[in-house]
């Protein structure tokens, strides 16, 4: 249970961190009007110049393409971005280089491809950097490969091809629009204040009157982070509570079994006492039995949990995170349960009167 929970947590954390933290994603939505009003480069410039605390701001526009190399076709998407986008989203390069200033301005036919694209249409034996490929009918030269970003919510972020923004606007989308803006801000600024500043600037630029709804949306990754963290926290507490209840139930079960065992074996205890066993030795015997029973149960439980979480994590598509600590902990807790719930029956056994115990049928 805990292993699975950790798997989910690790998965979510990875997804969140791949989004980047202290970052807003700003995109147009349908407000009171029917039409979607996209942003353009001027909005990006305005945010850069007029909002305090902004580290990076970058626009992005994307289009579905078929990437062709060496006779291989692959469905992917081309994303028009500037170098600042890589900083804002925290995208690193595995090999090659970013766009040069000139390439960005002139909109050169150069591209930085994702690992998925590389794996699908380029040979594994040689670097794709310097190779030429075709996106629909546009030829471009590969100048870099970015490091894996993982999959967020089912879509593969590694299946992407970055080209300079102006080039994508000119050759693929045919207008000056950008799909969304990424705003990365200084972590010392509060996300609420940043968000307010952004909203008021954009409302002003889009001439929204008081009372009119925002025709854009701001997604705050810090907020997502918090929400997820609290959800996962609640989940962990729930899991822990269930585990605690099952431990108590199991412990009471052990205690009952041991009490029954003590009653059933009253005669044996009498024999042992008559032969000269000390109360302490009888107590140890029953305590040891309880602990061994619990440890055995704990071992079986760990093996069962191991198999179950392995099966479930592959079923749910969650990475399997093996945590030796949690396994050792659960084993130790089983032993502890044995000691705690075995003590009472053991004490009862050791306090038996040998004469009475021998007479017991």
């Amino acid at each position: 249970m805990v292993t699975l929970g950790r798997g989910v947590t690790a998965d979510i954390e990875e997804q969140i961190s791949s989004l980047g933290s202290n970052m807003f994603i700003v995109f147009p939505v349908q407000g009171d009007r029917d039409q979607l009003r996209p942003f353009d480069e001027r909005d990006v410039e305005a945010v850069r110049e007029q909002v305090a605390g902004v580290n990076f701001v970058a626009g992005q526009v994307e289009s579905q393409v078929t990437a062709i190399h060496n006779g291989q076709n692959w469905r992917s998407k081309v994303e028009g971005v500037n170098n600042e986008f890589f900083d804002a989203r925290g995208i690193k390069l595995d090999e090659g280089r970013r766009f040069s200033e000139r390439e960005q301005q002139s909109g050169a036919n150069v591209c930085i491809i994702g690992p998925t694209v590389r794996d699908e249409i380029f040979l594994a034996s040689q670097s794709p950097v310097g190779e030429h490929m075709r996106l629909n009918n546009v030829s471009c030269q590969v100048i870099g490969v970015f490091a894996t970003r993982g999959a967020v919510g089912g879509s593969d972020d590694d299946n992407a091809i970055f080209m300079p923004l102006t080039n994508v606007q000119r050759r693929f989308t045919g207008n000056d629009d950008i799909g969304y803006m990424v705003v990365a801000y200084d972590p010392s600024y509060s996300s609420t204040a940043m968000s307010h500043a952004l909203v008021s600037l954009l409302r002003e630029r889009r001439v929204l009157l008081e009372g009119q709804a925002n025709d854009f949306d701001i997604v705050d990754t810090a907020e997502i982070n918090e929400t997820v963290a609290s959800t996962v926290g609640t989940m962990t507490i729930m899991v822990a509570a269930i585990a605690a209840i099952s431990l108590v139930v199991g412990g009471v079960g052990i205690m009952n079994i041991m009490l029954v065992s003590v009653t059933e074996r009253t005669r044996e205890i009498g024999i042992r006492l008559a032969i000269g066993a000390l109360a302490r030795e009888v107590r140890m015997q029953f305590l040891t039995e309880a602990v061994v029973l619990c440890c055995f149960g704990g071992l079986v439980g760990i093996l069962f949990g191991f198999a179950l979480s392995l099966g479930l994590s592959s079923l749910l598509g969650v990475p399997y995170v093996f945590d030796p600590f949690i396994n050792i902990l659960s084993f130790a807790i089983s032993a502890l349960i044995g000691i705690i719930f075995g003590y009472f029956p053991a004490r009862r056994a050791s306090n038996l009167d040998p004469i009475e115990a021998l007479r017991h049928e």
Partner: protein
Amino acid sequence: MTTGPIIELEKITKTFGEGTAAFQALKGVDLTIERGDFVAVMGPSGSGKSTTMNILGCLDVPTSGVFRFLGTEVQSLTRDQRSLLRRKYLGFVFQGFNLLARTTAVENVELPLVYRGEGKAARREAALKALDRVGLVPWAEHTPAELSGGQQQRVAIARALVTDPEVLLADEPTGNLDSERSVEIMEFLAELNATGITILMVTHEPEMAAFAKTVVHFKDGLVERIERDHHQREPVGAARCSARPCSSPSVRSGGTSCAAF
């Protein structure tokens, strides 16, 4: 170890319950048992013989009076100290055999040695030796359920003997056996006694008491009379005795007293 009597009881009383429900099982028992004696304790039910045996076995303590075992005053010892006395000096044989059901004969015999902290190999060796004395080595790996009553009682005797006790306490050892097995067991006890072990035995049957040297009769919580130099019965398998430093069968035959023993 002292050279005096192995067991001395002085004005032992034992009261069960309290207030109006109190029942005085022993009303001042005086009894001295010498080393090497074979004592049969007889008496009707409720006469106090079992209570006396429990006290002698250090399983119970008297309400008042002095119980000296090998010179130690047992009545003032703690539970655990009495356990240690039992472990060192006493062996028990019960009417119901009281073997551990799920363990083999040899493991049953090993049990007292476990509490003495002996090593595994030493335990096994001593247990097999004790089983040899009762002639049950071939049955060493059998569980009690696979043994006859007589065999079970012999395993129980082996268990009592494995620690070389000073005193063997037998509580109606033949109570659950037919007369033939009973005689067998009694003969074996008599042989054991001949090797120097003091034996205290509770019995209802005069035929079994006939094997003892001393018979103590209880009545109403008191010792009614003691027959010393008891008319000891000739063991049937007397030849077995000849190899041991005991009186020759001829001395005891024909009702000759064994007092010289």
